[in-house]
């Protein structure tokens, strides 16, 4: 020990050691105190009932452990005790912000098992509603992410614009969410009379609004400060953790099932897959904004095709196309009054057929399929197993949120607590899909 150091030690001996409480009595070393706190499950910024166990060193997150299951409703088990058509009403409730994608993924799987394909007009309508749904879902993401980072006006704008889309959904399907509109064999009914008019209004308004968000946020110093360099998840990490969707594309991987393994005729639409290289929250914001524009491009193309694609929206086989005639009532889609009169008062055979179709539904040939669609959050897959009965033997939902939440520790650990909010928001998890 040099004389300088021993002088210093001697001088310190005279002073009370204020750090004594933080020293380990055995070793005399300063204790590295950490604190474990629960964020959630009831917390406004965890997008539903997500619980994060955080170990903190001051403001820095040392470890993060997501705890899920608070919203588990047994959707997969329930589908095993319902007919194939009823399965639609269950899966649509999994990821409640993207109901059409749940329905589409499930129905494409069932159709592949049945060896049938929806009529062209149904395919166009499916693409149309799905892409509108993608915009609506991204708008909820924008609204909630904005709110969590203090941009309350963005929240108001996001929900305002989403409302326009939900109004259209209500006109088409009778409901704002949980539509059960896409069914095996097509869609339950054609677009309503006021549909094109509403759609035109929407397409007139939305692109400008998306520009507005960018004006508001792109160079907003607070928005950039909170998002840039936060929640970084590299392409290698994302692929190893199974992360898909905008998060993977914001890390420079142009993986999009609509392009890679096309379904529902996406190969015939002209659109781009936005990609960024930065892999942070800000890049995800840019990717999603651009995706909304691309989705509107697809909607415009699908809309233009509607006139040239007449015909049925459900395949002709009356065993699959259940129920035969529907109309929109004040409480959603239901049996058409004229059809009810037909089966109740006019035709015994029609009543028998209706009874069989409703109580039993169609028997699906044995086999198994994995049908995946690109939902707003990534790869949404349905592994469906049939034994040839009137109900599924097994439906496994590979929900992108479930897989993406798994990457949260990799995005949060080492950052500040405040950054964990921004990172979680940029992940856009929907707990209905995570817990199913």
């Amino acid at each position, binding site marked *: 020990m040099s004389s300088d150091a021993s002088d210093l030690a001697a001088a310190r001996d005279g002073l009370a050691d204020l750090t004594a409480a933080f020293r380990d009595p055995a070793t005399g070393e300063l204790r590295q105190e950490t604190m474990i706190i629960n964020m959630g499950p009831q917390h406004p910024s965890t997008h539903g009932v997500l619980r994060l166990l955080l170990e903190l060193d001051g403001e820095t997150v040392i470890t993060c452990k997501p705890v899920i*299951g608070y919203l*588990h409703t047994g959707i997969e088990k329930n589908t095993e005790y319902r007919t194939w058509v009823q399965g639609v009403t269950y899966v649509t409730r999994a990821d409640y912000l993207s109901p059409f994608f749940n329905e589409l993924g499930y129905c494409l799987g069932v159709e592949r098992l049945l060896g049938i394909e929806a009529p062209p007009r149904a395919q166009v309508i499916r693409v149309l509603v799905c892409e509108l749904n993608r915009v609506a879902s991204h708008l909820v993401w924008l609204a909630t992410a904005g709110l969590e980072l203090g941009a309350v006006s963005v929240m108001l704008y996001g929900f305002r614009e989403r409302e326009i889309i939900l109004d259209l959904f209500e006109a088409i399907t009778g409901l704002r969410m949980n539509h059960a509109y896409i069914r095996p064999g097509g869609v339950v009914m054609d677009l309503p009379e006021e549909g094109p008019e509403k759609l035109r209004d929407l397409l007139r308004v939305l692109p400008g609004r998306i520009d507005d968000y960018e004006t508001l946020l792109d160079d907003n110093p607070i928005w950039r400060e909170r998002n840039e360099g936060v929640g970084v998840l590299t392409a290698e990490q994302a692929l190893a953790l*199974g992360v898909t969707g905008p998060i993977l594309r914001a890390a420079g991987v142009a993986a999009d099932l609509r392009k890679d393994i096309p379904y529902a005729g996406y190969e015939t639409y002209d659109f781009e897959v936005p990609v960024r290289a930065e892999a942070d929250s800000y890049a995800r914001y840019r990717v999603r904004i651009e995706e909304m524009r691309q989705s509107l491009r697809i909607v415009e193309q699908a809309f233009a095709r509607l006139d040239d694609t007449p015909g049925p929206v459900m395949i002709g086989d009356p065993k699959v196309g259940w129920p035969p005639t529907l109309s929109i009532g004040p409480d959603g889609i239901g049996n058409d009054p004229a059809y009810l009169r037909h089966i109740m008062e006019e035709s015994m055979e029609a009543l028998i057929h209706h009874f069989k179709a409703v109580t039993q539904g169609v028997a699906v040939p044995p086999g198994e399929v994995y049908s995946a669609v690109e939902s707003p959050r990534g790869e949404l897959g349905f592994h469906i197993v049939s034994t040839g009965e009137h109900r599924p033997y097994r439906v496994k939902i590979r929900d992108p949120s479930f897989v993406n939440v798994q990457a949260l520790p990799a995005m949060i650990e080492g950052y500040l607590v405040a950054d964990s909010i921004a990172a979680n928001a940029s992940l856009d998890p929907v707990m209905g899909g995570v817990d199913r």
Partner: protein
Amino acid sequence: MNPAELAERLRGRFADVVVARDEVTAVIERDALLDELAWCRDEPGVELGFLSSLSATHWPDAEPAFWIDYELRSITRMHRLRIKVGLAAEDPHVPSVTGMFPTANWHERETFDFFGIVFDGHPELTRILLPDDWVGHPLRKDEPLGGVPTWFHGATVPPIDERGMA
């Protein structure tokens, strides 16, 4: 690669390759699982480096009683492969693939939770969606639907065909 080409490529390696409904399925032995998955991931041209999903089905009256299926996707080659492993009812063990595919961690926990499949070598094989003190594995086909005790005041939920009959 289209399904037929992929199947042709795989037939040199796997004995049991099926193409049905444009999907390729390879059935392999449990002991070969890790080696074969590594081969699928690393083999140039096959490049199935992305594990989309992992789940199980239960067939109580059949042998094997459980099928574990691995849904692989190639981000670079745009094709898919399903790998299936059969497990006997009395020995529901399968090696964990979390070392190879970190994404399998939660999928395996979920499969353990719902089916009681034990993934040997998993870093933390605990229940994930159901409460920690849940008894049973509800997606097994022989799990009773109703007719089980509830958590509250010693009550029971009647079996589904007896409800509303009082």
